[in-house]
């Protein structure tokens, strides 16, 4: 870390600059405090490390390849590498976190697992590890998302999870998260809440980031093999809550020469009223237990975001990303639905990879922003597009 560089990691009080903290009702204090006091200790145990790494290798299929996308690179006249999180078991980066948290839950003696999900990717990843460990699993999902994402609902059920519809508010991800938090309040002793992104009260953003940091740890040695250097010129990731991004950036946060690019969903356009571009539309606020950038009314009511991609359809960003935005460490780019869909189809045709619509947002930046021919740009391909087929079919009238 360079001497005068800002600290982009969490501090001992649970903050990234002015963002973060643990804004939770007293009912949750014992649970969150138990986690806060133990998570670093548990993660540092050799036995934990061994089990985590073994499962990532044998069960998830890590390391995920770092793939040089030759034809895509030719098209944009720069060097583009794709970090293939789409090849993980269950089809996205989400499982890196759920493996870590299920091992954490077991060590904390919790035998009932709850989670929230939007598109269902995190729900599936949670149901998967619960099946693996033989633990009870309850997934909260907005009633609207349950109809939008029927295949993932079926997957979760096949994996033995109970899917509970969130009927309050707008009946999407934000409300599913509220319901999961309420469940945790009602079941404070035996339950662990596996949050699916780098959000929530401290220590969640840091814990999720650390579990996802395997992504950039691998990029370092993989890029060394490809290019003879560990540091690319840019790392790029899409941001819903920001877990794949946090993992992709983690080992580069304090490497000044590495540019960080964060890609948000602009929906129908940043100023259309139908958007999820938090860095542009958000103001400092408190959501789901942390202070961060948040889309809200002038009166402090949280507003409903919109994106074609359910995984980016969240009114906030993780506190680490709010800090990266505020300090200018990361460059934030917003990508519209149409731009993402086009970039997604482009990757299919050029590289034979069908990306998740979330990941397509990250790929769409090459139409917006020029890179030098010698630049090495690593893009997190956070998930595969199977779950989005219906969306692609309808959009392109396939």
């Amino acid at each position, binding site marked *: 870390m360079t001497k005068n560089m800002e600290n982009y990691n969490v501090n001992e009080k649970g903050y990234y600059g002015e963002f973060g903290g643990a804004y*939770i*009702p007293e009912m949750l204090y014992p649970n969150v405090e138990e986690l806060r006091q133990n998570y670093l200790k548990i993660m540092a145990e050799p036995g934990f490390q061994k089990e985590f790494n073994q499962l990532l290798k044998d069960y998830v299929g890590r390391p995920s390849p770092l793939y040089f996308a030759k034809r895509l690179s030719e098209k944009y006249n720069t060097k583009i590498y794709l970090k293939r999180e789409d090849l993980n078991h269950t089809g996205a980066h989400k499982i890196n976190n759920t493996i870590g948290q299920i091992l954490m839950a077991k060590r904390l003696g919790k035998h009932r697992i709850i989670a929230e999900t939007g598109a269902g990717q995190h729900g599936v990843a949670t149901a998967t590890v619960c099946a693996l460990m033989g633990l009870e699993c309850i997934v909260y999902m907005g009633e609207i998302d349950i109809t939008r994402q029927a295949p993932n609902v079926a997957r979760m059920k096949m994996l033995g999870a109970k899917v509970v519809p969130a009927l309050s508010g707008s009946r999407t991800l934000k409300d599913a998260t509220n319901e999961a938090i*309420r469940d945790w*309040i009602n079941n404070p002793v035996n339950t662990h809440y596996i949050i699916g992104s780098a959000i929530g009260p401290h220590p969640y953003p840091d814990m999720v980031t650390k579990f996802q940091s395997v992504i950039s740890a691998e990029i370092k040695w993989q890029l060394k093999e490809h290019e003879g250097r560990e540091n690319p010129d840019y790392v790029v990731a899409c941001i819903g809550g920001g877990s794949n991004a946090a993992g992709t950036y983690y080992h580069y946060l304090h490497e000044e020469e590495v540019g960080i690019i964060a890609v948000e969903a602009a929906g129908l356009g940043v100023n259309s009223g139908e958007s999820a571009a938090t860095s542009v539309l958000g103001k400092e*606020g408190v959501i789901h237990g942390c202070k961060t950038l948040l889309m809200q009314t002038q009166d402090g009511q949280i507003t409903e975001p919109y994106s074609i991609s359910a995984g980016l359809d969240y009114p906030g960003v993780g506190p680490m990303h709010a800090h990266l935005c505020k300090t200018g460490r990361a460059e934030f780019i917003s990508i519209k639905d149409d731009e993402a869909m086009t970039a997604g189809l482009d990757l299919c045709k050029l590289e034979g990879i069908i990306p998740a619509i979330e990941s397509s947002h990250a790929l769409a930046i090459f139409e917006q922003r020029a890179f030098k021919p010698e630049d090495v740009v690593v893009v997190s391909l956070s998930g595969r597009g199977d779950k989005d087929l219906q969306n692609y079919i309808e959009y392109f009238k396939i």
Partner: protein
Amino acid sequence: MNRIHQKLQENKKLLSIYFTAGYPTINDTVSIIQDLEKNGVDMIEIGLPFSDPLADGPTIQASSTQALKNGMTTEVLFDQLKDIRKSVNIPLIIMGYFNPMLQYGVEAFCKKCQEIGIDGLIIPDLPVDEYHDEYKAIFDKYGLINVFLITPQTSVERINFIDSISNGFIYMVSSASVTGSQSGFGDEQTNYFKRIADMNLKNPQVIGFGISDNKTFTQATNYAKGAIIGSAFIKHVTNEGINTINTFVKSILE
């Protein structure tokens, strides 16, 4: 002297009622407050509605959603309450989530509360430590009492800490739950009530969550200075409207 302190000195068990401002209709706020006082309620918690009330059960959630639809905002509430002290004498507490206060500006919010004659605040998602380090000085400046929660899971050490920085009463959450989810108290709860009563804390306790009728009110006030009713009152207003508040209060106090 703050009205809350005065009230706590009265030699009686206190009934406090929570209602959501702007529900059932936007302009019911003042008449509900006046009616509650007239019928012998000791203290009122005025709920400032929030889009994402994560410590609340379905009843208060639904009333909050409706209140927001009706057009309730922080500004509107303050405006409705501006003359409230001309007609109401009992302690008034605003209960709301932190984000709307943060957007209004914590200091501006507290200042406005003082001007109106609000006596205290309950902010479930503003943690004790954050309050203590960042906001206590502001609350003190405007003479506002901040009320903290404890639950059956709160450690003795933390209860003592909360007692030490409280200056009014402690809000005892009856059980591990969001608002409104109880139907009567069993041994587990009464043991917890007794355990806390036996701690002889500096601040009196008022029990809330799951108080719904005369029976639960009596059970709670056997051990505590008072009890708070929220969801049951909202349900009454939903089903019967706001003209029979007297029958509701009577049914609790019998």
